[in-house]
């Protein structure tokens, strides 16, 4: 099947909700990429950082929203603010470091200086030199709207977007299971690692929304070694894990532990009473038997959490990897990846968790290194003149959409299998809606 013609103003038509076919232009076309920066990224709430990255007043980190550089600032007055990293005078970056602590940002071109709350502090000449002909209220750093949920900081420049709580909706119930399961919540373990995948950002986002079967094809050998389970058993638990179409394009999967696996395997035992204090019975039930939890918050924030060991001498420990898929071009995505842990956990547990995370889920990670070559292969195979006319298949939805789990404890639509393609296709349905409408 192929699409001969489509209305370039309605690229959402390239995703067919009825059949599960997606024209590959969606993943490789430069014009569509330019359009999604406007219709998806400039309209949506985007993740910019975690509260623990900017814990002290004056702390800042520089980030990317879509293709715009921004500064996430913990202003001296205690407020979290997000600014376009561009001097109102001529558009120069006013901050060129990844992170730091500073009362102000200084433009390198004319020395205009801005307080860390975004207000213009001084300019090249005295304000009087403008002879009262200029309104300096227009010369503060451009501020985005900021919303925080469970320590996750989001921002948008879209004044018309519904508030963050509405955007997250049912995803909050699942976010709480990872970021809000102890009284103090999560913290990042160090700065993000960054690398460039040769693929469209959506391949990553839908892979984490999430794709069950790739885990055993691309990661079969490392899974068997790091998880110490026969392949048949791994396939069995993956097929039996629920996939949740949460709504608003958010999606997740839960791969349950195999029969006989003790509850809370890989978790810090000291944290379990805190989980029991903070989480509902339904959340606890999913989490204590969770072998693998993977989720994407639309459009491009994802995480993965599961217990591994790379040594026969050591028991498995959970790592918790969070990442953003930056839409760098139609064919490349910078991946920014953090590791997190519950704040209350002991440093020894955090160190062990971080180390296993580094060994598995970074650009050199024993899992990620295989994904990235598979994703680069998808880009290569799909971008040609003939190739881009073909369809990518999410047709497992045809066999799965009636297969709802009636008594699933969480909100959204839960389907029986991580092989169902239901939750990952949900992200493309939201993308379709935003691309058609020209905005949120």
């Amino acid at each position, binding site marked *: 099947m192929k699409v001969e013609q489509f209305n370039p103003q309605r690229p959402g038509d390239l995703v067919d909700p009825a059949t599960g076919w997606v024209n590959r232009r969606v993943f490789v076309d430069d014009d569509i990429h330019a359009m999604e920066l406007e219709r998806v990224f400039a309209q949506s709430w985007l993740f910019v950082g975690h509260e623990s990255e900017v814990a002290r007043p004056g702390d800042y980190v520089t980030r990317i929203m879509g293709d715009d550089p921004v500064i996430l600032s913990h202003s001296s007055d205690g407020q979290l603010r997000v600014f376009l990293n561009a001097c109102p005078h001529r558009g120069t970056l006013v901050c060129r470091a*990844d992170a730091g602590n500073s009362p102000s940002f200084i433009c390198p071109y004319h020395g205009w200086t801005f307080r860390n709350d975004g207000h213009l502090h001084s300019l090249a000449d005295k304000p009087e030199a403008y002879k009262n002909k200029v309104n300096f209220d227009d010369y503060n750093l451009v501020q985005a709207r900021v919303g925080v949920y469970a320590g996750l900081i989001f921002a948008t420049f879209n004044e018309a977007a519904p508030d963050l709580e509405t955007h997250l909706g049912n995803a909050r119930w699942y976010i709480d299971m990872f970021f809000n399961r102890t009284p103090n919540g999560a913290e990042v373990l160090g700065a*993000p690692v960054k*690398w460039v995948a040769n693929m469209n950002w959506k391949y990553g986002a839908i892979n984490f929304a999430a794709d069950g079967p790739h885990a055993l094809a691309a990661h079969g050998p*490392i899974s068997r070694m790091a998880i110490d389970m026969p392949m048949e058993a791994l396939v069995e638990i993956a097929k039996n894990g629920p996939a949740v179409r949460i709504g608003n394009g958010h999606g997740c999967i839960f791969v349950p532990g195999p029969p006989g696996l003790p509850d809370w395997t890989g978790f810090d035992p000291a944290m379990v009473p805190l989980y029991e204090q903070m989480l509902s019975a339904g959340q606890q039930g999913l989490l204590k038997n969770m072998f693998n939890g993977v989720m994407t918050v639309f459009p491009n924030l994802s995480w993965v959490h599961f217990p591994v060991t790379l040594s026969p*001498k050591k028991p498995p420990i959970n790592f918790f990897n969070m990442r953003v898929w930056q839409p760098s071009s139609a064919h490349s995505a910078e991946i920014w990846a953090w590791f997190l842990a519950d704040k209350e956990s002991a440093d020894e547990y955090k160190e062990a968790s971080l180390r296993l995370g580094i060994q598995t889920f970074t650009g*050199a990670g024993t899992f990620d*290194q295989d*994904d990235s070559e598979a994703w680069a292969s998808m880009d290569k195979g799909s971008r040609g003149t003939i190739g881009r006319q073909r369809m990518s298949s999410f047709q497992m939805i045809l066999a799965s959409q009636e297969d709802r789990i009636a008594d699933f404890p969480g909100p959204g639509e839960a389907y029986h299998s991580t092989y169902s393609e239901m939750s990952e296709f949900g992200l493309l349905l939201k993308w379709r809606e935003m691309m058609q409408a020209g905005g949120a």
Partner: protein
Amino acid sequence: MPKVGGSDQKTEVSDRDYRRISRFLFDEAELFEDKDYQTWLGRVMPDISYRMPVRGVFEKGEQPKQKFTNGYFDEDFDSLVLRTTLWAKASTTVAESPPSITRHFVTNIRAYDSEEAGSFEVTSNVLVFRIRSTSTVHHLFSCRRNDRICEVDGELRLASRLVIMDEPVVQSPNLSFLV
């Protein structure tokens, strides 16, 4: 890290040891190029630490001090065995099947006697030229290595390696090789 020109208190190794250490690093580079990790693992200490921490761009050049350090590698002997075992067979790796083509250029070697007897502190620069199966356009990785190399029964062994990857954003989809 030693000062430029070794101007601090460290003692440079003898010419003989410098030749031995250089040969050890050049041999290692060839083992990496040939993907002969089995032989390489025979030349490292069982308590090896192999790390490549995250890099960034900061006002004073240095990362503000943080309690935890993220990175690309934080390996012990067991995890190095597991990684290299995966790369050894086409059926157990996607990243290295077909294997990437790498050439390791090792330069700027400085070697000092360590405070620990029979042990050397060695720094070197490495440039890795790499071609992956999905990209025949090469990518270059520039790195600094801080090594501790020790002598066991007359043979040199790698005891620890800290790799400073110079790119803050690694412009390549994966790092399925050793430096």
